[in-house]
């Protein structure tokens, strides 16, 4: 009942100066909704970029990195004690590609985080159409598993992805590559490998991932046909691409499988540090901006609370004269701040959601997007609410403390 008396006074203060309460509330609402909007927007952007990046990039890639540099054998055997020279040394790569792929695939599949693995035979080739030729990458793929990992079928512009499975003579090529070589579906295309093998294929489809470097240079081929092109055995694989549940958590999987696989195991973070850096930087910017907004809102609340306390300084003195303790006075004004914080937080979350929805509908036709990207994470909303509450608590506590220290004698005697 003692507390409820304080609450009642706080309630009367809040409701008797509605304008001030609303201004303070608006500050919190604005801060929190901006925090939510900015973070949703940035994580939407990051998600979009991730999706784009992972159209051709797996979370973990396993490949044959080539032997170490052992060209100076003398030094290796004798150290620096002997002066000797080997002219024109060469390292011969005994194995090309990955051997014993079946066992490796089985091993990787057994990891609980792994959601998919697909073998590839990647070949650097020239794509030729009469006089035009373009240096590009021909990827021999396991049609089903490739689609599971990269969802290529959703990027098909013409033709069907699954046709690749039944057409050893078929290629699916990027739209920009097709455009540069003036090629269309059902046209013939010539492929020239580095070993000088030349072979004609038929274009059975085109795709567009919106990653220009991929669309301009890449073509897909059935993995069996790719092995044929290289005259390799039916187990030949150059790359194993692995996807896991959470693309951020490659490190533990990598640490577990790398020691037992005699090939290079590389996470996407290692090979694409710029992606990781860009999304981290965007996150930092959005947090900095939204915390600034919240701080400014906090100053607004601080100001309004200070004003209220100056206005009510006589009431505070009289309450103290009547026997209200310093703690009572603090709780009266802190309650007001908390009410503004919670109310502002709730309204701010709704407003933030509405703003995010509106921005999400603004057309933005670039890199395969139709609208501005936005993601809706519960954690953004909860964090905004918590930050908002903390800000209002601090902004309300300082004036409340000041109020509790008022000496009634000074005020009543004038």
């Amino acid at each position: 009942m003692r507390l409820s008396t304080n609450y009642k006074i706080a309630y009367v203060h809040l409701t008797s100066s509605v304008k001030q309460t609303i201004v303070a509330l608006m500050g919190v609402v604005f801060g929190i909704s901006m925090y939510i909007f900015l973070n949703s927007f940035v994580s939407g952007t990051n998600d979009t970029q991730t999706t784009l990046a992972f159209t051709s990039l797996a979370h973990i890639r396993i490949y044959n990195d080539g032997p170490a540099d052992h060209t100076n054998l003398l030094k290796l055997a004798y150290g620096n004690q002997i002066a000797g020279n080997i002219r024109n040394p060469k390292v011969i790569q005994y194995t090309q590609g990955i051997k014993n792929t079946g066992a490796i695939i089985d091993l990787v599949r057994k990891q609980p985080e792994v959601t998919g693995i697909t073998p590839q035979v990647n070949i650097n080739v020239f794509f030729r159409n009469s006089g035009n030729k373009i240096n590009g990458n021909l990827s021999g793929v396991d049609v089903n598993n490739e689609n599971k990992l990269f969802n290529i079928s959703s990027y098909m512009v013409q033709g069907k992805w699954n046709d690749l499975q039944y057409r050893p003579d078929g290629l699916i090529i990027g739209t920009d590559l097709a455009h540069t070589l003036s090629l269309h579906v059902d046209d013939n295309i010539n492929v020239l490998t580095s070993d000088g093998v030349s072979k004609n294929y038929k274009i059975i489809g085109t795709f567009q991932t919106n990653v220009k470097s991929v669309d301009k240079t890449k073509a897909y081929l059935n993995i069996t046909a790719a092995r044929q092109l290289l005259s390799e055995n039916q187990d030949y694989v150059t790359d194993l691409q692995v996807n896991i549940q959470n693309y951020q958590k490659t490190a533990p999987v990598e640490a577990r499988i790398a020691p037992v696989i005699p090939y290079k195991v590389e996470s996407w973070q290692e090979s694409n540090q710029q992606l990781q850096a860009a999304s981290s930087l965007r996150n930092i910017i959005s947090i900095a901006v939204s915390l600034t907004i919240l701080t400014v809102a906090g100053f607004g609340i601080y100001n309004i609370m200070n004003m209220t306390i100056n206005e009510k300084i006589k009431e505070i003195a009289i309450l103290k004269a009547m026997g209200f303790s310093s703690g009572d006075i603090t709780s009266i004004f802190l309650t007001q701040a908390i009410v503004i914080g919670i109310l502002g937080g709730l309204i701010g979350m709704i407003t933030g959601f509405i703003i995010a929805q509106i921005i999400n509908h603004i057309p933005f036709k670039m890199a395969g997007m139709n609208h501005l990207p936005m993601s809706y994470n519960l954690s953004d909303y909860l964090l905004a609410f918590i930050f908002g509450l903390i800000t209002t608590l601090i902004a309300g506590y300082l004036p409340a403390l000041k109020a509790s220290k008022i000496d009634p004698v000074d005020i009543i005697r004038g």
Partner: protein
Amino acid sequence: MENNIALKANHIIKHFYQPEPFKVLKDLSFEVKTGEFLTLTGKSGSGKSTLLYVLSTMDTDYEGELSINGNKLTGQTRNQLAAFRNEHIGFVFQFHYLLLEFNVLDNIMLPALKLNKKSREEIEAKAYANLKLLGMEEQALKMASKLSGGQQQRVAIARALINDPSIIMGDEPTGNLDSKNTQIVFDIFKELAHERGQTIIAVTHDDDFAKNSDRIIEMSDGIIL
């Protein structure tokens, strides 16, 4: 110490340090009996209000010793003193000091709700009884800001009485009132002191008001004449 001593001040000395060091109260000692209607008089600057605020326990910056109803109050913390005031002391000030955003009833009930010894219904009944005593029962649900000065002062008295304090202190309780309202307040104080045994200590510069009280302490330059 006898039971009928309501308040005892022992060698009270107080200095002001602003604007320059100055001894306001010069070693005052006196006792007030239970049920006594005491007035403090004197010219401006004689220290009478300063003395009242020391007696009220709100001003703790003094030397000497103060006890009320046998409780030694000197040296207690501000929060302990606040709790003591809440239960044992009622205040009436010159400028009414009601909480203007609350209605009359809430104003009166606040100290009792704070004390939290009775149910809300009992407190409300008591508040109505106090209003009736002061002839204000019809204004109970009006906002405090809508009352005239005399009415506000009567509400302030009703508020001072809500916890049945043993001592009621007034700082110029009639300073802002016309003669008719002054007479009403005086009669109420007299009734409280003589019929209910509540001790009244009031600072006043109204000679008629003082003359009719039980005892006058006249002050000049920080000493009792």
